[in-house]
């Protein structure tokens, strides 16, 4: 049997598993993926590999006693064994008061994140993509370190109440750091796509090379509050901390940024500039995602923050029941609406500011205000009178993405980016922000 099953093969296998079940309720999740990667450093390939994962997870429930067991072999004996094991674990488990039972059959919209181009990447095409990058860095006597990883996979679920869901996807992530031989310049690029045909490693390498050469001879500026232009790669690592926090339960419990004095939440409140809109949509052409969530709930287009106002927080099925509201699953993707400005226009309109191309080592400092710390990295530039004047030394910042989105000046066109913190792909625009807080200087290049 192939590792990547078709919808009908997955359905047949899941039906077979459910036939073994003797529990009150049974839910089976099935997935398979093939990943290939190639890593290089010091202008040489350092490691390469392929990884195959396949997994079947069975959740059995007797009343509110729930057990989960998993297996990676799909012969009949193994399938029966994993069902029995999950039942054994359920019998031994204490009652889970938060177990709300299974969902019945659901209707899902059809989203497509699977591209044959990506699925057919081979070790040879992977090596070729990297050799294009290496050729450029070697020619320019720059030092490249990069990583290319592609993935194809599927996931499916079925339960004893008749729910069935299936989704197939592909993804490729490419990241590259180019340093000057003397270590005084460094540039970075990261690209993520569902369709590998959109990946141009040579073009991406040129961006990192340009930033590397351009960042040589950086001067020190005084830390303080500056107008900044954040490229999407820099902005996304701050924004995702807002996304992480948009959960109703922790807000209701009084322990999140989305909590409010008096035991209320910020649902319905304007928290950021009215040009800010975040939504999720499995049908997004640039960032397709599964149209169902892990617990089987359908995923549809959902507004999270619209024109600066908190429109929705996610509600697990348990918490929704407690609160008497409709459950809202955590999203499978996140898109921030952009504006029309180009990066050049943003720079041109800036009298005095800083272009930030990447942020690094982001950590939460205060969950109450979503204050984050981290540093600029791999290309930071001083802007004066509408022009990039010179590269500057890296800064440490302490800033909350909420404060930042209240200080919004301009938004550019939304594009797909890879978070260097979580490795997740998002749609995020470049943005110009006033009074961004840099608190100290770093000598790091």
């Amino acid at each position, binding site marked *: 049997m192939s590792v990547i099953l078709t919808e009908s093969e997955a359905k047949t296998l899941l039906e077979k598993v459910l036939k073994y079940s003797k529990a009150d309720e049974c839910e089976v999740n099935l997935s398979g993926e093939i990943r290939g990667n190639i890593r290089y450093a*010091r202008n*040489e390939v350092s490691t390469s590999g392929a990884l195959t994962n396949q997994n079947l997870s069975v959740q059995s429930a007797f009343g509110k006693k729930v057990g989960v067991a998993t297996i*990676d072999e799909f012969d009949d004996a193994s399938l029966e064994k994993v069902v029995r094991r999950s039942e054994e674990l359920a019998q*031994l488990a204490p009652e889970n008061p938060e177990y709300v039972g299974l969902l019945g059959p659901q209707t899902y919209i059809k989203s497509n994140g699977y591209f044959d181009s990506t699925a057919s990447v081979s070790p040879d095409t992977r090596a070729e993509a990297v050799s294009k990058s290496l050729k450029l860095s070697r020619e320019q006597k720059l030092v490249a*370190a990069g990583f290319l990883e592609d993935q194809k996979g599927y996931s499916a679920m079925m339960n004893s109440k008749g729910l069935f869901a299936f989704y197939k996807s592909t993804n490729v992530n490419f990241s590259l750091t180019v340093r000057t031989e003397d270590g005084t310049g460094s540039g970075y690029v990261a690209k993520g796509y569902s369709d590998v045909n959109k990946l141009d490693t040579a073009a991406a390498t040129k961006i990192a090379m340009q930033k590397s050469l351009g960042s040589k001879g950086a001067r020190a500026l005084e830390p303080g509050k500056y107008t900044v232009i954040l490229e999407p790669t820099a902005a996304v690592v701050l924004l995702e901390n807002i996304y992480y926090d948009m959960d109703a339960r922790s807000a209701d419990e009084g*322990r999140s940024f989305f909590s409010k004095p008096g035991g209320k939440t910020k649902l319905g409140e304007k928290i950021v500039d009215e040009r800010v809109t975040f939504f999720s949509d499995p049908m997004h052409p640039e960032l397709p995602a599964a149209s169902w969530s892990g617990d089987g709930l359908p995923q549809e287009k959902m507004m999270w923050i619209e024109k600066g106002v908190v429109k929705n927080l996610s509600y697990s099925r348990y918490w929704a029941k407690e609160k008497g509201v409709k459950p809202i699953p955590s999203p499978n993707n996140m898109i921030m609406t952009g504006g029309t400005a180009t990066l050049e226009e943003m720079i041109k309109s800036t009298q005095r500011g800083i272009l930030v191309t990447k942020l*690094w*080592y982001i950590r939460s400092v205060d969950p109450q205000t979503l204050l984050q710390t981290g540093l600029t990295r791999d290309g930071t530039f001083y802007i004066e009178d509408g022009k990039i004047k010179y590269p500057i030394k890296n800064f440490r910042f302490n800033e909350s993405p909420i404060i930042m989105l209240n200080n919004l000046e301009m938004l550019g066109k939304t594009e797909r980016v890879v978070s260097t913190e979580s490795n*997740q792909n998002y749609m995020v625009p470049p943005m110009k922000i006033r009074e961004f807080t840099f608190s100290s200087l770093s000598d790091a290049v």
Partner: protein
Amino acid sequence: MNRRDFIQLSGMGLGAMMGSSIPVLGNIVTADHLLEPAADVAFKKRMADIALNATKSRGATYTDVRIGRYLQQYLFTRENKVQNIVNAESYGVGIRVIANGTWGFSATSDVTPEGIAKCAETAVAIAKANSKIQKEPVILAPQKGVGEVSWKTPIQKNAFEVPVQEKIDLLMKVNSEAMKNGAGFVTSNLFLVNEQKYFASSDGSYIDQEVHRIWPTFTVTAVDKAAGKFKTRDAISSPMGMGYEYLDGLASEKIAAPNGLVGYRNSYDMVEDAIMAAKQAKEKMTAKSVMAGKYDLILDPNHLGLTIHESVGHPTELDRVLGYEANYAGTSFATLDKWKTKAFNYGSKQVNIVADKTQPHTLGTVGYDDEGVPCKEWDLIKDGILVNYQATRDQVNILGENASHGCCYADNWNSVQFQRMPNVSLRPGKEKLSVFDMIKGVEKGIYIIGRGSYSIDQQRYNFQFGGQLFYEIKNGEIVGMLDDVAYQSNTQEFWNSCAQICDKDDYRTFGSFFDGKGQPSQVSAVSHGSSTTRFNGVNVINTGRKI
């Protein structure tokens, strides 16, 4: 087949689709299954020999074989509920070779003569394919075969043999005591790991090892809903290379600290800590917001460990120094030219930092590393001067040495081993000094306990650390609790501001259980020992914001 899954931590909200998670390797099984014995050594030797012969006949000049069974038991609870119990097992073999002067690696869960032979063949084929674009051949430091040997973490009580119910009872007691003492919410977890690793190499080594690790931890949250305010306090336990005996809470292993605080050496009283945590989380709600400025910092070992990890541990990894991690974790300011001067002042004279994989009860301690090198102890910083790095067999030649430091580790049989951090610890002060006496000498300072927010640049110059508890010191006395504290410094400046180190009676270890590195990312566990230490004139910022 390989499986690498992630357990999402509770309360993550939309984080459910995101990155912050705990890796789980292998299949989910019953707790009893984890107690089933591993394959016997004779079988593993036979399988290893099949691999060694297969690769040699295909032209490999070096081979190592790792047959590994990796067991994990993780328990997750909140308040009066068990959220999840994960019992996972991962079993398979990884084969690494040098052919045409180039590394090749392949892994399989098919631990049969046929499966291994096929895997060995693939490993050699990959090495040969990669050798076409390789310019410099691998230089491997010699390692004499050690024959057939074995090693085991010296535990007293195998945590996997303790009934799951007993563990749940402990966590429920922790939670209920925290709630009784003022917590609004509490989550508690227990992480247990057992690695059963068999290593064989073409050098003539057959090494059977069993490694145990344990990490009990919790987070207590105090909430003032009316004010819309919340504060947390995490456990001040340390992950350890120990069995379940770590949870005995022995009085003899407790260290009395100022303000009624307790430090834990090699035995942890989880319930006692939870009670203190609940009270302290409440106290944090009304603590004074710090005035930014220069302070003398008194750093408890349970806090300083992470600062050592980030500002000494990572920058002295030789692969980072050489640029192998440039695209992800970064490079290092501690460059070879600085080391070659033999005069680079990493810290003040009393700073002696040692790397080791031999210290009892620690996470990094094993008999042999994952390329068959017997473990040892060596200096990284001596009397304040940078004197060495952390290296593997294919790196030590760069340092002019002919024996590996034993720093090679893979987090699973299907991951390729690479340079990972050994324990990196600050030696205690030679003169008798308690933390009480240390505080008496401070005019304006802050005493910091516990691991908080942490961030450092990619070359390890500029860092910012928070903590769990902050106490203001005025004229030699603690005058109250502070809030909104973080300190920023530059690594070299910081270690040169090291003024005093308490003696060995105050020495404790801190640990990192899931330290990430590499692409694709692998985790490792490592300890950092120290005694309470004083740093003068460090820049403290106020992290409070109004929204």
